[in-house]
C-alpha cells in the first residue's frame, strides 16, 4: 500500500469535485435541504421539558451526512470512473484496489465533515441546538457510522460488479434503508417486531439508540457501542471480502474489463 497513491486518489477526487456540479448537489445541496425539512419537524416534536425526540431527529440528520458521504465516495467514486470510461485506465497503473478504497474512504470522511458541519451550523441557527453538546462521545458515534458507511459502499460496489451497470442506481438507493431501519430518527421500539429484528442487525441502530440514551441519561450506552463495533468489524471485513471475491469473479468472467462505460 503506497501513501503517495492514496494521496493521489484524494487529489483525483478533489480535481473531479472542482468540475462536477452533480457531486456538489449530491453531497451538500441535498444535505442542506434535508436539514431545513427535519429541523422544523424536530421543532414540532420537541415539546415539553425532558423530551429529546426533536433533538434526536436533528442529531440524526446531521450524522446522516457521514453515512451518506462515506458510501457515496466509494460507490459513486468508482461509478464516475466507469461513466468516464477511465476505470480501466486507472487500474492499469500500479494503483491497487485497497489504495483506491482507502483514498475514497478518506475523501468520504472529508466530505462528511464538511456536509455535517454545514448541517450542524444550519441546525444551530434554526433551533439553537449545538451537536457539540454531546461531547467526546460524538467522535465515537461518527467513527462507528463512517465505518458502517464504508461497508455499505463496498457492498454496493460488489453488486455493481456482479450485476452490471443496470443496478448503478443502488448507489443512491440502498443507503436510504438506514433511515427507517437503522434507528436514525426514532426509537427501534416503535417499529413492528419483525422489523426490529432487522434493525438490530444494523450497526447504526446501536449508535442512534446510544445517542438517544445519552440525551436522556447523560451517559453513553457502552454495551450498545460494543455491539455496534462488533457488527462494524464483521461488516467491514465481510464487505471487503465480498468485494474482493466479486472483482475476482468479474476478472474471470470479463465483466471487469467491460466496466468502462
Amino acid at each position, binding site marked *: 500500500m503506497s501513501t503517495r497513491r492514496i494521496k493521489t486518489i484524494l487529489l483525483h477526487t478533489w*480535481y473531479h469535485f472542482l468540475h462536477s456540479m452533480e457531486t456538489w448537489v449530491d453531497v451538500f445541496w441535498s444535505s442542506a435541504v434535508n436539514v431545513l425539512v427535519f429541523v422544523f419537524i424536530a421543532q414540532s416534536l420537541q415539546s415539553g421539558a425532558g423530551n429529546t425526540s426533536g433533538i434526536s431527529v436533528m442529531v440524526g440528520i446531521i450524522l446522516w451526512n457521514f453515512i451518506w458521504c462515506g458510501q457515496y465516495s466509494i460507490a459513486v467514486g468508482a461509478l464516475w470512473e466507469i461513466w468516464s470510461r477511465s476505470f*480501466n485506465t486507472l487500474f*492499469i497503473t500500479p494503483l491497487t484496489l485497497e489504495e483506491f478504497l482507502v483514498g475514497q474512504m478518506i475523501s468520504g470522511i472529508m466530505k462528511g465533515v464538511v456536509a455535517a458541519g454545514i448541517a450542524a451550523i444550519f441546525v444551530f441557527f434554526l433551533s439553537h441546538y449545538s451537536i457539540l453538546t454531546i461531547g467526546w462521545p460524538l467522535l465515537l458515534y461518527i467513527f462507528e457510522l463512517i465505518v458502517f458507511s464504508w461497508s455499505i459502499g463496498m457492498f454496493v460496489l460488489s453488486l455493481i460488479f456482479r450485476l452490471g451497470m443496470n443496478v448503478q442506481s443502488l448507489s443512491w438507493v440502498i443507503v436510504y434503508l438506514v433511515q427507517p431501519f437503522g434507528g436514525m430518527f426514532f426509537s427501534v421500539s416503535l417499529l413492528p417486531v419483525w422489523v426490529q429484528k432487522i434493525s438490530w442487525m444494523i450497526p447504526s441502530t446501536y449508535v442512534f439508540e446510544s445517542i438517544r440514551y445519552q440525551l436522556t441519561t447523560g451517559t453513553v450506552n457502552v454495551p450498545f457501542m460494543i455491539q455496534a463495533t462488533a457488527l462494524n468489524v464483521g461488516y467491514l471485513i465481510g464487505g471487503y471480502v465480498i468485494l474482493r471475491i466479486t472483482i475476482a469473479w468479474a476478472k474471470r468472467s470479463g465483466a471487469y474489463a467491460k466496466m468502462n462505460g
Partner: protein
Amino acid sequence: MDSILEVQHLTKHFGQFKAVDDVSFSIKEGEIVGLLGPNGAGKTTTIYMLLGLVTPTSGMITYFGKDFSKHRGLCLGQMNFASAYSEIQGRMTVAQNFHIYSRLYNVPDIKERTLELLDLLEVPETKDKLFWTLSSGQKTRVILAKALINKPRIILMDEPTASLDPEIAAKVVEIVRELQKKERVTILYTSHNMREVEKICDRVMFLSHGKILAEDTPLGLTKRVGGATLTLTFAGKYLTVAKYLKEKDFVHTFPRKNVVEVRLSDEQIPKALFGLSNEGVWITDVDVSKPDLEDVFLSIAKGAYEHATH
C-alpha cells in the same frame, strides 16, 4: 535483444467458448508488433489479459523477466496502454489528469513531462481544457501522450485509431512511428486497418478463433500469399481474351466491359501479356497489384473459417 514480453500458452475460456487458445509469443525490446484478426478473434481478450483486466484460464505472462501475476505493480509501472475505448477522467482538465497519472506512476517533473508530451503529440492547446470537451482526434492524441507519461518500456495499443477519420488516423500512425523512433518504446498494436499495420509494424501475428495462425514480417506474410492481380484494359476482342485465359487456365474476371482481372504468379505475368498480344489483342492499359496484408488477412481468415466450419 532482450525479450520485453513473453507469453506462454495463454488460454482464456468463457464457459465453453475458447476466446484465446494456447497462444505463445514474445516481443523484443524496440519492436512494434501487430496483432491482427477479425472480430471475435481474441485480440482484445489477449490485450486485457496482458493488462491484468481479465484473468487467464491458464498460461503465463512475463514482463521484463518478471511473472506478471506475482509482480503486478512492478510490471504495470513500466508499461502503459492506449485505446480508442479507454479514456481518462472527462471531468478533469488534461493537465489535472496528467498530474494524477504522473503521481500514480511516480513520475518526477510532472509539469515539464506534461508539456513535453502535449507538444510531442501536437496538442499543447488541450492542457487546460476538460478532457470531455476535446474532439476525437485531440482525445486520441492526449491518450497517446498519457500512454507515454511514465516513459514505458512497452505500450499496448488496442485499435487506437478506431474512431478517427482517415486523415487524422494517418497522422496518429505517423506520430506512433515517430514516437517509437524517439522514445525507443516497444509496442504491441492491434488494429483492423491493414495498411496502418503494414506501415508501422516490424512483425505481425494473425489471430483467428483464439489461435495465432501466422507470424512474420508484413513482407514475409504477403509473400506467403504470393502472386499478383493483373488488370488489363483492352480494345474489343472480348471472346479472344476470354478463350485465351480459359485455355491457359488463368483465374480471371471481367469487372467491366473491356477490362479483365487475372490472378497469376509473378512469372506468369509476362507470359500472359505476350500471349494476349500474340492473339492480336490490343492492350491499352496494364496494372499489376501485389498482395497486401488485407489479402493475407482475408486468405487466413477464410482458411480459418473453413477449417472451423468443417
